[in-house]
């Protein structure tokens, strides 16, 4: 039916496409392997102590990542609490009043916000919060993180709200529900899985981001937790700083921290995915 040339061309092109895209995914395998190899040693050697000890000095043989782990959990949770309510409201506003000029402005501005480089956000927070406060702090880090993750939460929530089938929306309106009631009694129940996924995705983003924390978070190594208004530390930040340092001990800790970060990330990702699979509309 097809000329031979076309058949050959078809198979050739398809195999090139598949091979190229498999090449894109090889790095992940390499990253997992290297992180297990390099970080696994550190983790096996120290076990749980790696998670609860203070980071090493350049010359000490080993150390842990306690301040970074605690700091990461606190700052990304705070960032989630700061970023989610406004992005949720904005997303609902934009899907419910799509023709209002404010919606159009909002849509454009929040989406452009994704284009703001996170290091610029970090510099901005440094000047507006860190300098007036006189010290880098976990609060400043969380605020910086929340600015960066707000547009992502917004985009996720808007697509969740837009996925509501129009017959359900019309049914809610036909029953005389106000938009707030419809949200409360119909949409939230309907979208609970995808809204939870949105939360988790935002949390994941905040947990892994480095650049927003560079000038805002500080780099706490002397104690595990000094207070919200005092400097903290974070896993990605610790990895970044230690990777740039010349000391062998620091590199080992960086790889151990990478493995921990990777495991947390993968665990959260799998939870997120298993939620998404259950969505039925």
């Amino acid at each position, binding site marked *: *039916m097809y000329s031979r040339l076309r058949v050959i061309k*078809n198979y050739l*092109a*398809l195999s090139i*496409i*598949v091979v*190229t*895209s498999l*090449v*894109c*995914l090889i*790095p*992940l395998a390499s*990253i997992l392997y*290297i*992180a297990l190899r390099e970080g696994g040693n550190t983790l096996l050697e120290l076990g749980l102590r790696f998670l609860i000890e203070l980071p090493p000095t350049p010359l000490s043989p080993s150390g842990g990542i306690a301040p970074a782990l605690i700091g990461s959990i606190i700052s990304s949770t705070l960032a989630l609490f700061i970023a989610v309510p*406004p992005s949720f409201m*904005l997303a609902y*506003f934009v899907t419910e009043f799509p023709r*209002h000029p*404010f919606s159009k402005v*909002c849509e454009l*501005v*929040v*989406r452009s*916000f994704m*284009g*703001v*480089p996170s*290091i*610029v*956000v970090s*510099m*901005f927070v440094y000047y*507006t919060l860190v300098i007036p406060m006189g010290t880098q702090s976990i609060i400043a880090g969380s605020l910086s993180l929340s*600015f960066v993750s*707000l547009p992502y939460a917004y985009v996720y929530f808007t697509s969740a709200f837009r996925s509501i089938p129009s017959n359900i929306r019309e049914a809610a309106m036909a029953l005389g529900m*106000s*938009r*707030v009631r419809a949200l409360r009694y119909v949409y939230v129940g309907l979208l609970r899985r995808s809204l939870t996924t949105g939360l988790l995705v935002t949390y*994941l983003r905040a947990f892994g*981001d*480095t*650049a927003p924390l*560079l*000038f805002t978070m500080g780099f706490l190594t002397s104690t595990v937790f000094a207070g919200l208004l005092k400097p903290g530390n974070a896993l*990605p930040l610790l*990895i*970044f700083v230690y*990777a*740039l340092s010349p000391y062998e001990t620091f590199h080992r800790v*960086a*790889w151990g921290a*990478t493995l921990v*970060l*990777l495991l947390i*990330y*993968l665990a959260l*990702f799998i939870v997120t*995915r298993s939620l998404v699979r259950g969505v039925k509309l």
Partner: protein
Amino acid sequence: MIFPSKSDRLLFYSTLPLVVGVVGLLLAIVSVTLALAWPSIERFGISLLLSSAWKPSDDPLAESYGLAPAVAGSLYVAMLATLISTPLSIALVLTVTEVLPRRLGTFLRYVAEVMGGLPTVIYGLWGSSVLVPLLRDTFMRPLHEYLGFIPLFSCEPVTGYSALAASIVLAIASTPYMAALLIEGYQMIPSKYREGAYSLGATKYEMLRIMLGILKPYMVAASLLGFSRTLGETTIVALTVGNSLKFTTCLLDPMYTIPSLIANQFESAGLYRYALPTLFTGALLLLFICLVASYLGIKLIYAWRGRVYV
């Protein structure tokens, strides 16, 4: 607007301040950056973009700075990375949506999603300690040896940390992100085009070419968004680009990009009068280019969406 219910009015008016707040935040970021950059712009003017000096000094009159290497390096690295990742992400999209059987495709899609959300610092560490030495020995050295007569490859890759290495690691990190954008667009194309192509007797490859033809404006948009993201990327670049202030056009030389310059110099810049404003000028440039690129990308996507749904 007319609201039938009180609570809707409340919803509307309580969200308005948030809209104003978000717009205000963006304006505040731009204006604070501009205000802090101003002393340097006023003092050095256009020479900031042309000079490659970086001479901090205790005497403000003797200070002299230029952003030329960092600006050039940024554009260089981001463009190269986008150039590499665009075709890769298109291949990835076609593989997971059309070419492979559905189950395998979905699985690969998850793998790509894992890669897309992976913290960038992990790419940076992996790139700097695994990929860069590997690239230096297996790719950059031969490139220099056999194609050294081309100015782009004329310099000896000593450490391997270079613009080329940074762009490759960046491309690896941004391919899944661009693929995720493209998948969203690809799935918006009505299936009548696919059915039409098949019914006219097209092979799968020919059908894909037709679909890609429809997707073309979206691809441009995705490239713009990917470009804006790679341009603002700090961690990967700072760990792999080599951080050197020498102005060079050779791809195998270490360079600086604006974000990596800021990350490296910010803490010490506070000691000198004009160093910090110069870094803020860099941030302003970065902000400007990134915002324009992502604005254009978003606009293109909207325009395309409107056309495809006809």
